[in-house]
């Protein structure tokens, strides 16, 4: 073994995870908990009760100034002018050629202040990308170091968090947020998540994170709270068909292909990647993302080849067991003409074709 070139980055909750006996892994250069009690247990606990996730590795970028909206709308695909103060939206950061630099959450804090949550491993790249397009009267700050982020996810998430905040959580609609306090410390409380469950993501000062984590664990004890790691986060998001950068989306994938056309607003005016997206649409898509379920014995996993009529036709972007559904599921890219529900496909599992069928997504949708 050779030592990594750079030491792993740690969140403010690193010692907490170790105390809780988490299994730690290198996740994109971050020393992160992959599981505590066990992936399946954590997954099911988020679906039925409440789970606590440290997602402090995620990046934050602040755009402030009189033309903050113009910059955000120039670098991101969705239309931030539609946001009210206290509202969030899912959006894409694209390169000029129409491929993804990242997928992000845009929060409107004020008319002259937008708060972006970006992927951990992309944060410096995203900051450079956004700053390089800043010809507007506004400032871009790479603010990841000023925030820890904790996700409280599951049907009892609201009950848990409500015990620690005076903010009326039930009044925050999905994809909205409020600034207030948690355990007496300033917090941005967003009703967002990456699990397919109801829940909240809170942005707090790093030095407050260990105390707030412990208080959340204590507050949620009566509801069966458990810490949950990146392993469960991945199976939860896959069941809900939420994209993961580097898997469903990346520099060679457009939003059209990734089934994310809804986050692209061509009519809002010019933005980075718009011309390429229009051309790609006019030329016609060659491939599209679609869900599948394994029929034969075997598990289709990330990167496995997909065959149609005995010939290579695409690849699995994410795949594995779906603990809530007791099935083996996945997402894959297929030629557009074949990206239809009910198509018989084969996933190549260690050089053996295993039968699968394309299915509607999301695989899991919570009862409202």
């Amino acid at each position, binding site marked *: 073994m050779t030592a990594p070139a750079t030491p792993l980055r740690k969140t403010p909750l690193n010692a907490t995870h170790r105390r809780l006996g988490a*299994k730690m892994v290198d996740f994109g250069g971050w020393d992160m908990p*992959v*599981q505590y009690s*066990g*992936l*399946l247990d954590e*997954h099911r606990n988020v679906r039925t009760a409440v789970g606590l996730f440290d997602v402090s590795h995620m990046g934050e970028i602040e755009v402030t100034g009189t033309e903050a909206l113009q910059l955000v709308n120039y670098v991101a695909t969705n239309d931030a002018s539609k946001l009210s103060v206290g509202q969030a939206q899912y959006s894409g950061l694209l390169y000029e050629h129409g491929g993804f630099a990242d997928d992000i959450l845009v929060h409107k804090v004020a008319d002259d202040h937008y708060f972006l949550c970006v992927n951990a491993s992309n944060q410096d790249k995203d900051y450079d990308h956004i700053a390089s397009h800043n010809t507007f009267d506004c400032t871009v700050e790479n603010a990841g170091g000023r925030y820890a982020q904790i996700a409280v996810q599951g049907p009892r998430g609201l009950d848990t968090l409500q015990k620690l905040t005076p903010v009326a959580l039930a009044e925050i609609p999905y994809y909205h947020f409020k600034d207030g306090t948690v355990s007496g410390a300033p917090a941005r409380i967003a009703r967002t998540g990456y699990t397919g469950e109801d829940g909240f993501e809170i942005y707090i000062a790093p030095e407050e994170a260990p105390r707030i984590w412990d208080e959340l664990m204590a507050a949620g004890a009566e509801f069966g709270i458990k810490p949950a790691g990146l*392993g469960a986060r*991945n*199976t939860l998001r896959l069941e809900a068909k939420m994209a993961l950068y580097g898997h469903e989306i990346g520099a060679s994938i457009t939003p059209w292909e990734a089934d994310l056309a809804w986050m692209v607003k061509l009519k809002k005016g010019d933005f980075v990647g718009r011309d390429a997206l229009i051309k790609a649409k006019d030329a016609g898509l060659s491939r599209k993302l679609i869900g599948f379920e394994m029929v034969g*014995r*075997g*598990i289709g*996993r990330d990167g496995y080849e997909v065959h149609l009529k005995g010939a290579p036709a695409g690849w699995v972007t994410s795949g*594995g*067991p779906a*603990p809530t559904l007791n099935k*083996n599921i996945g997402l894959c890219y297929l030629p557009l003409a074949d990206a239809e529900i009910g198509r018989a496909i084969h996933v190549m599992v*260690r050089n053996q074709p295993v039968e699968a069928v394309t299915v509607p997504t999301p695989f899991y949708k919570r009862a409202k």
Partner: protein
Amino acid sequence: MTYPEKFRYTKEHEWVLAEGDTGTIGISFHAQKELGDIVYVDLPKVGAMAEKGKTIGSVESVKAVSDIFAPVSGEVIAVNELLTTSPEKLNEDPHGAAWLFKVKLSAPDEVAGLMSAADYAGYAGDE
């Protein structure tokens, strides 16, 4: 963790129990713990030839796929059908009910070259 004295162990975390010319093969407590929740076990077919050090199957947890390397050589004479329907047994009883397969040892001397329980316990480093 106490590892059964009558087993011999590999660096790839398999165990072998040799009884006459039959070798029963499984994965260690340490291996199942590292893998986490096991959801699928791919076993060889009866009649297949196991060759020491070569891949003969795989064990999959929710997150990962791990190859099973044959710790000894021989013809596969039985596979544990329990694992087809209940792969989670590998987490619960890796040294007992959740054995993987049995071979007719073609080179019984191979067994003596594997690690003893004490050596393996030190190698695996379980607390």
